[in-house]
């Protein structure tokens, strides 16, 4: 395997007396769909928030494509190439669907105050390119016909798709999805699975937190299992599924006596 895209070493995070993450290490290869699972409170979202700069870790480092990005601010991490979605959807709810995705292009475009005021030809061209790309992405996730509706008015599943489109607009190397299938029915989940496959097909690596085990087992190349902030298993889904420690974490220890 070539050099990993994301390499995390000994990540630690504590909130007061709670050790949310202790010494978590893992690496994600280019083009992988990497799952992150564990019981509630295992530290999945905390790890996510560390990797996307919302929290800074108390210990450990992580690097994206060989560049150390530990402790950078969220916008710098997004610039480095990690884009995310949120477990409890955080769209710009009162803006249009199209504007949401156009905002995702902020990072990869340049117009400043002077340019915006003078509205030079370059600025107008860039603006057209932003809109074109945003519409393409809406097409890609399948909600283009809602482009002019308020983001908050979309049905739940479409809001999740919009969050993915917005994240893709930042041209991420690693797309981090926090429970994208939450609240989706079976057919929506199936469509999501196809979407994840085609995102990977486009060369983007995916990190996926998910509770829908069938989705995880079907779509992920490897999964990392966390429990009480510690790494308890890692490997292909089929292997991890049989790991006694994983079974114990999810179902509780068999009666000893």
């Amino acid at each position, binding site marked *: 395997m070539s050099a990993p895209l994301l390499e995390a070493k000994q990540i630690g995070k504590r909130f007061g007396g709670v050790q949310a993450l202790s010494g978590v290490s893992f690496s994600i290869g280019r083009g992988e769909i990497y799952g992150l699972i564990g019981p509630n409170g295992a530290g999945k979202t905390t790890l996510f928030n560390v990797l996307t700069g919302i929290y800074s870790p108390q210990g450990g480092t992580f690097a994206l494509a060989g560049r150390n990005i530990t402790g950078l601010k969220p916008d710098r991490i997004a610039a480095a190439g990690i884009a995310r979605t949120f477990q409890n959807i955080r769209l710009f709810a009162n803006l249009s669907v199209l504007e949401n995705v156009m905002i995702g292009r902020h990072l990869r475009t340049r117009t400043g*105050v002077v340019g915006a005021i003078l509205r030079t030809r370059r600025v107008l061209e860039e603006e057209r390119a932003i809109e074109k790309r945003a519409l393409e992405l809406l097409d890609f996730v399948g909600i283009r016909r809602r482009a002019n509706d308020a983001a908050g008015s979309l049905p739940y599943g479409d809001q999740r798709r919009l969050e993915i489109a917005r994240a893709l*607009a930042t041209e991420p190397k690693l797309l981090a999805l926090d429970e994208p299938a939450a609240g989706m029915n079976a057919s929506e989940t199936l469509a999501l699975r196809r979407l994840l496959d085609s995102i990977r097909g486009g060369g983007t690596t995916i990190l996926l937190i998910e509770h829908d085990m069938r989705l995880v087992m079907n779509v992920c190349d490897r999964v990392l299992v966390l429990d009480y902030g510690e790494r308890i298993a890692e490997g292909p889904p089929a292997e991890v599924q049989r790991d006694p420690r994983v079974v114990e974490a999810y179902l509780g220890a068999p009666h000893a006596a």
Partner: protein
Amino acid sequence: MIRSRKAWVWLGVALIAATLLLLPFALSQAGTAWVRIANIALLYVLLALGLNIVVGFAGLLDLGYIAFYAVGAYAYALLASPHFGLHLPFWAILPIGAVVAAAFGVMLGAPTLKLRGDYLAIVTLGFGEIVRIFLNNLSQPVNITRGPQGIAGIDPARIGGFDFSRTDTLLGAVVSGPMKYYYLLLALLLAIVIVNVRLQNSRIGRAWEAIREDEVAARSMGIDTTLMKLLAFAMGASFGGVAGGMFAAIQGFISPESFVLVESVMVVSMVVLGGMGNIAGVILGAVLLAFVPEILRWTVEPAQRALFGRMLVEPEVIRMLIFGLALVLVMLFRPAGLLPSAVRKRELEAERPT
């Protein structure tokens, strides 16, 4: 169909432009005082448009906005009055005032980056008072602002040999000083409206909207929220600075009394009443709140004398009563403002309990 609609729009624009251009001639028939009132109204429109960038676009509630107006006015006064014996040319001071005000905007923005909503409002309110109190007290030990006495004898706006304060005959028409200022302010207003519209519909404007909607999400999408908020404060403040410079030039005299808290509240009211985030709404709000009280002032007194034979209630009191009532009614029946922006309307409709 579409073509004819476009024609109507152009006709409307032409009508508004003609009205605005001829307005001072009509007003001066009623007395030059009305032209001055129109000028004050235009100054308020400039202020409201500046504040709209901070409050309407970026969603940062600023209750001390008048401080930037003060900074602009004092920058002008200090650089063009006998107080220091400096008489820099008008075209140079106005941009200086804008830049100095922008610097003050960053000074206010930097320590308040982490504050939002009510907390930010309180700090900005304090900032506005601090600036006014400084102006009031910077007469000792070195006399910079002349304290409460204010600065008098400020140079009028003058470009080349053209003096905006003198009455001239131009193209066969007698044009008074206030009328000339009116046109100057109108030109400035046009420029500021264009800047506002273009900023709103740009990458920068979208970043501000994103911050207003959800700062965490904006940051995660790669928007440098620190930089963008400072930019909003600086841009808004610079407009305030320009308006302040014009105020100093027109009045010829300024003192800290002109920059009290009520003025900040007034400008915020204009933005909220008209429709936060919507440029046309903000202009409407500013014109209404600047003009209506003046009209009342001129009608309430004669009306009372005609009805009761004497003055029962001071016009100032009635003015404030009606002003308050109008605000309450607007908040009740049009909470998003008289001409709301589409976004704000959605937001308030979503929040309304069903």
